[in-house]
């Protein structure tokens, strides 16, 4: 109901394109487009009303345009049932879209130097981020990695938008053979980066956070946890994150994230409940911690 909150709309597909190993779908979704800030995502119902696959699929918003009142584009690789079904959509089909969801990338106030690190489809949300940073006068450098050349995301756009763009592939079929973290340190040095933004699989985010730490640069990571609802009600997407108060909480990556400060994410403990997390088995919170809890609010 609130104006900044997400909306749910049945929106017509404008077009479906193949882009290397990915599909790009553009939908007409004015309500989503006008509310969007970079780093946010949409969830899409898959399979139709009588589908046996109930859960919505989350996708980072890759682009919004003012056409037709507002369009939203997302890119995806076919992984399982839902993405296979999406890849078969045609223009004018209707999609059930909810968005924009999640905490966006925080933008620096000043025109600083930012390096954007993406892995595979995780590069998607970095493109609207790059534009937003450029609009603020920031220098943008890209480091994009993938398994193979056809999984490197929008290399041409990256080169156009950014000061520099470095690519890595696991098989060496494009750019440097190796991981994004093999080149990230050098890019940070050369570009004199003030901030790192990263999106991709958890192990990559962890490694990127480590490299940024070594260089004393703050890092914002966007995680891709499995999500049943995307709206904050199911509690299936939690990861351990250290709060401002130093207390670790199991926070929802859909509404408290997907963007977090890298240093705050307890990467080693993702998939478990750290013993010192608020409410962990055996945990005994002080009255103070509990009072602090009452003061916090839902994002």
């Amino acid at each position, binding site marked *: 109901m609130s104006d900044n909150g997400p909306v749910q709309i049945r929106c017509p597909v404008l077009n479906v394109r193949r882009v290397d190993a990915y599909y790009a779908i553009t939908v007409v979704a004015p309500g989503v487009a006008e509310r969007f800030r970079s780093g946010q995502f949409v969830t899409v119902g898959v399979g139709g009303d009588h589908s046996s696959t109930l*859960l919505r699929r989350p996708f980072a918003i890759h682009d919004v345009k003012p056409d037709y009142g507002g369009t939203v584009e997302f890119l995806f690789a076919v992984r399982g049932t839902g993405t296979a079904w999406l890849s078969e959509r045609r223009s004018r089909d209707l999609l059930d879209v909810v968005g924009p969801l999640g905490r966006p990338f925080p933008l620096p106030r000043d025109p600083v130097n930012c390096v954007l690190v993406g892995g595979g489809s995780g590069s998607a949300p970095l493109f609207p981020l790059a534009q937003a940073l450029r609009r603020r006068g920031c220098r943008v450098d890209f480091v994009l990695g993938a398994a193979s050349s056809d999984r490197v995301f929008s290399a041409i756009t990256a080169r156009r938008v950014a000061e520099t763009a470095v690519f890595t592939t696991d098989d060496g079929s494009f750019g440097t053979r190796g991981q994004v973290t093999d080149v990230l340190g050098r890019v940070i040095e050369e570009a004199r980066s003030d901030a790192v933004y990263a999106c991709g699989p958890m192990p990559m985010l962890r490694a990127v956070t480590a490299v940024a730490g070594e260089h004393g640069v703050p890092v914002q990571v966007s995680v891709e946890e499995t999500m*049943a609802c995307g709206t904050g009600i199911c509690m299936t997407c939690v990861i351990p994150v250290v709060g401002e108060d130093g207390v670790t909480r199991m926070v929802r990556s859909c509404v408290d994230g997907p963007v977090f400060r890298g240093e705050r994410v307890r990467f080693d403990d993702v998939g*478990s409940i750290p013993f010192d997390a608020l409410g962990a088995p055996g945990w005994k919170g002080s009255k103070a911690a509990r009072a602090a809890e009452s003061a916090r609010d839902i994002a």
Partner: protein
Amino acid sequence: MNTDLRIRLGPAELPNPVVTAAGCAGAGRELARFFDISTIGAVTTKSVMLEPHAGRPAPRMAETPSGMLSTTGMQGPGVDVFLQRDLPWLLSRGGRAIVSIAGTGMGEFGELARRVSEADGVSAIEVNLACPDPADPGGRYFVDDPASAAAVVSTVRSHARSDVPVLAKLSADVPDVVELATACVEARADGLSMINTVRGMAIDTRTLRPAVAGGIGGLSGPAIRPLAVGCVYRVHEALPDVPIVGMGGVRTGEDAVEFMAAGASAVAVGTTNFSDPSACARVLRQFTEALESRGVERAVDLVGAAHRSGVGA
């Protein structure tokens, strides 16, 4: 037509029978971004415990055919935060609250019942009996044994304010749901909610490991609807005067009709909130239309219709 949608759960009256299921709607705040939560019958809040709980490790969910497995382990901030932050917010928006409570033993259940019912504006307390019974050597839930379930209900009933109805939340995967229901009603439950998730499991065929941490998860969604409808039907047959909140895979207004015909007085939407955040409002609209198109003037007239022949045919 001016359909009368009001229903009663013991001493509580709700403006209509569509409520949310515990743990599938938070305390209403997130869903309020998609529809006006004051329009639905009530919000059943996520089971609240006395202390903060971090819940279970990830992965916490897996999709299954027409359903999902989950294991969230009742993560939550504890009753203090709930009473100071979540409940007031819900009431301030005109919502009605059915507060689900979960305890680790009789003492906690009693204290929760007392504190929650003392808060103003609580429409009902729902007792989540799918909690491990510390007295059971096999780590079974209270709900798995009618006597333990009844003991919890009795404790809650005696600690809760007498004008706040107490609903016992039952599971389907118990030896005999009618025996369980009867035990809870004899322990003075004002109503029954059914069903909770059903124990199930999936193996991730890529890793060949259980798909949710800990192996066993709770199955929910339309897949379990026939189990839920069967429980509601059998319990209503045995205890026709006890109000039932029916749930398990409600997706549309027709599903609500199905549950009410089987014997439910109210119907809760759970997993469907995940797939469709405006589901409750849609189900209420569809349900209202379904009554109108059948010429049923009062929602209560539908309750238990499948037990009588010729009704609404």
